[in-house]
């Protein structure tokens, strides 16, 4: 199989482009991962001067997918929402510019839950993305389009964003690596904000080396994002992984999920890591704190979408107020409206102590608990989602169940710590991944453990979509 694959960096060359376009078009008919695909549009948008100095051979000529909430010049920027259907980005996100300068090429925008709000990508205003391992199941979300595109072999890597698990959960559903970097390690400039204090731009890939190269390329201080930091300025407390923590309480997990976790623990032991059980009782408060903060920030972040300067505008309106009301009524989906209302509610003056500020206190307490845990362990192994990729529509989980299920992923966002979800064993029809969390700016530990487990827990190609490029 491997002998027959073609190299990724031929896809965009004149002799390879036609075949590549055809290949993606055919496969994506079933997977439906891309909202927009045009591999030649980004040509000539790299900063030539910067390109000379930063060009990394490893990413040169590689096509990549971009979640549709990250700005790529001349591509749409819908965020999976009707309200931004007509918006074409006039600029590049910092992460995109850095990848362009390194020679990689954004080839299209991937599907997502509207504004990142969801865990299935079913909540997109445009289409439903299917899990390449089992088309009847969801690809996860909100970066489901990126995860599915990578899993189906359409691109070697894709960018996503992680506000409460939106990279790690779809990565684990689709059997690929998904990195949520430390908050601030990668510039958020060009990432359409959902919950500014929680989210970060990250990447998904089948190959851990490509993922690491992408992270090394996009990380770093950016003057356009004053919450960004230079990871190199951060004290390096741990050079390598010795001890991996696992939750003492592993109840409440689906049988397959529990099984995946036990397989991972065995693999870690075999690879020579010490295992230590830890207790993180505050994890039970992560979901309510997360949704309070995320909704509060979303209510302000999404206020700018009013149909006046860009995006869809009602054909007729009585006055400016009416215009805004109509644009938002028609443009936003129900889940988005729900979270805006919830966020507006928790921020009312006189009620902040009860909701928003209380959530911030819980957030600080959780962060402290994780800091203490990392005094004894180097990495923490956690499930990603309590159940494997679920079925579309009514067969799956309710919106409320999906929110409760964010328990294991939201901790990384509340604490700002990095997390990497790894391809897990394929149980029944779909892979069941797990994740590791590391101390702040210690992504290298995540890559180290991923390499150590690479042979025992490889990223498996979906049976229906064997690799054509590698």
């Amino acid at each position, binding site marked *: 199989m491997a002998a027959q694959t073609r190299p990724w960096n031929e896809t965009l060359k004149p002799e390879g482009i036609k075949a590549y376009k055809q290949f993606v078009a055919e496969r994506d008919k079933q997977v439906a991962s891309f909202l927009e695909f045009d591999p030649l549009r980004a040509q000539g948008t790299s900063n030539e001067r910067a390109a000379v100095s930063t060009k990394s051979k490893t990413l040169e000529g590689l096509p990549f997918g971009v979640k549709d909430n*990250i700005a790529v010049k001349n591509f749409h920027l819908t965020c999976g929402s009707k309200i931004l259907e007509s918006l074409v980005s006039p600029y590049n996100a910092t992460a995109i510019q850095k990848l362009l300068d390194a020679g990689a090429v954004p080839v299209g925008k991937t599907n997502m839950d509207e504004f990142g709000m969801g865990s299935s990508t079913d909540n997109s205003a445009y289409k439903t993305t299917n899990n390449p391992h089992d088309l009847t199941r969801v690809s996860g979300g909100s970066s489901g389009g990126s995860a599915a595109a990578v899993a189906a072999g359409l691109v070697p890597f894709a960018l996503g964003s992680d506000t409460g698990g939106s990279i790690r959960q779809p990565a684990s559903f689709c059997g690929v690596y998904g990195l949520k970097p430390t908050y601030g390690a990668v510039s958020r400039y060009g990432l*359409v*904000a959902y919950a500014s204090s929680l989210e970060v731009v990250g990447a998904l890939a089948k190959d851990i080396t490509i993922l690491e190269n992408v992270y090394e390329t996009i990380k770093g201080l950016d003057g356009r994002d004053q919450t960004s930091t230079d990871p190199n300025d951060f004290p390096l407390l741990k050079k390598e992984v010795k001890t991996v923590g696992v939750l003492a309480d592993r109840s409440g997990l689906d049988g397959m999920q529990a099984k995946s976790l036990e397989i991972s623990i065995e693999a870690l032991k075999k690879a020579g890591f010490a295992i230590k059980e830890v207790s993180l009782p505050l994890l039970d408060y992560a979901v309510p704190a997360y949704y309070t903060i995320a909704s509060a920030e979303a209510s*302000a972040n999404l*206020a700018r979408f009013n149909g006046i300067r860009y995006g869809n505008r009602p054909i007729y309106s009585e006055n400016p107020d009416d215009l805004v009301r109509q644009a938002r009524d028609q443009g936003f989906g129900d889940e988005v409206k729900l979270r805006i209302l919830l966020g507006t509610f928790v921020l009312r003056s006189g009620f902040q102590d009860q909701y928003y500020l209380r959530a911030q206190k819980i957030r600080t307490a959780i962060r402290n608990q994780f800091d203490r845990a990392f005094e004894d362990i180097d990495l923490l192994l956690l499930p990603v989602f309590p159940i494997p990729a679920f079925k579309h529509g009514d067969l799956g989980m309710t919106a409320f169940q999906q929110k409760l299920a964010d328990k294991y992923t939201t901790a990384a966002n509340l604490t700002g710590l990095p997390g990497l979800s790894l391809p897990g064993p394929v149980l029944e029809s779909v892979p069941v991944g797990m994740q590791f969390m590391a101390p702040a700016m210690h992504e290298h530990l995540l890559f180290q453990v991923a390499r150590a487990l690479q042979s025992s827990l490889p990223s498996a190609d979906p049976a229906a979509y064997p690799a054509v490029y590698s």
Partner: protein
Amino acid sequence: MSTYKSFIGLEIHIQLNTKSKVFCSCKTSFGDEANTNVCPVCMGYPGTLPALNQEAIRKGYAVAKALHCNLAERCHFERKNYFYPDLPKNYQISQFAAPLGTEGWIEIDYQNQRKRIRIKECHLEEDAGKMIHAGDMSLLDYNRTGTPLLEIVTEPDLEFGDEAEILLHELRRLVRYLGVCDGNMEEGSMRCDANVSINLAGQGLGRKVEVKNLNSSRFVRKAIVHELERQAQILDKGAIVLQETRLWNENRDQTETMRSKESAHDYRYFTEPDLPPFSPDKEFLASLDKILTELPLDRKDRMSKAYGLSAAQADFIAEERPFADYFEQTVKLGADATNVAAWLCGDVQKVVNRENVAVYESKLSANRFASLIKLLDKGTISGKIAKQVLDLVFDEDKDPEVLVKEKGLEQLTDRKTIRGLVDQVLANNSKAVAQIREGDQKPLGFLAGQVLKESGGKADPRIVQEILTEVFSLK
């Protein structure tokens, strides 16, 4: 009215004159074609982030320091949420819980008394765009969006409309001295809302009414006077003042209801997650001193003492920093301060008004002005000739000494020559001479005038007077 005590606080917005906007790199110039000084950041495009402008925060801290505020060791920004089409993000980045300056004061001279008005806080925020209604359309210009604004909030220490007008004048002078704002209320680079309440003396603050749309310091005064009167009438009737926001209607000279307290906004303030807190370091704090300077009122006091100026003169000269600099430079060049002040406030002012130029930018450089006054002090020219020379400086753009020499305008002090002129005048006016000899001194002035006229205005009037006295042995 006299039974009530009034409480007036002002909220003053000043546009800081930074090169670029407060959170992006767009130009802050005004009067350009609509929507040309904009970028994805200030237009609130999805995915963009604010980046704090160092010049804006520095100028903000400098004003707070000049207003004797406690400077925040750590300040941060909040989002103030409200929907309005001219506000691209539908929230304004402002400061709420931790403004950059708190608990300061400013002094004003009110009715010959110095009064201290407490400053509650100074906070930095971004300006909105402009909405223009044209027929059945509403047009938006976002050029102003993101211009840095410093909001200065006073405690309710003012009592009268004219006091508020004076405070605004003093603040305008202060920000102009610091060079951080032109203080022009008509053009909106300085804006003011007034919080007005009255109550029976000794009963504390009354119910607050906020008055907006005050586009000049005159309107601030008139609106406050009107509002105090309106509230007094309500209390006189035993009724209660409605807590609300009112707008000044300049055509009707009255305030009118804008919105009641019930419909007031809940701004749902929360910490701006896109901007880290700002903590000034030593270097930053030291850099404030480059902006800070002797403040107008201090300078007025000092100049008044140092140069023996009248209060009116000192006020006039201290009004503008370059004007005061010009005055002090002229004095430093050796000209008599009293004369410099008198000329500056009098004849020089007349000429520059006519020429429509600021004196410190005019042809009358401090050097020229000093030499003119020195020529006068030495008696080389008379006051009358000095006025001529002053006009000539503006007409011919030459130094006073050169003009005096070229035109032969030196004062005639040679007694012999003057004596000759006197004799000539006496010979031609025998009637007047006879009159004086008979003991009537009235024609003396006439004769002196004739002598000066004969000399072409150059004869030293003191010497002419002395010779005439001698001739008639009047001592």
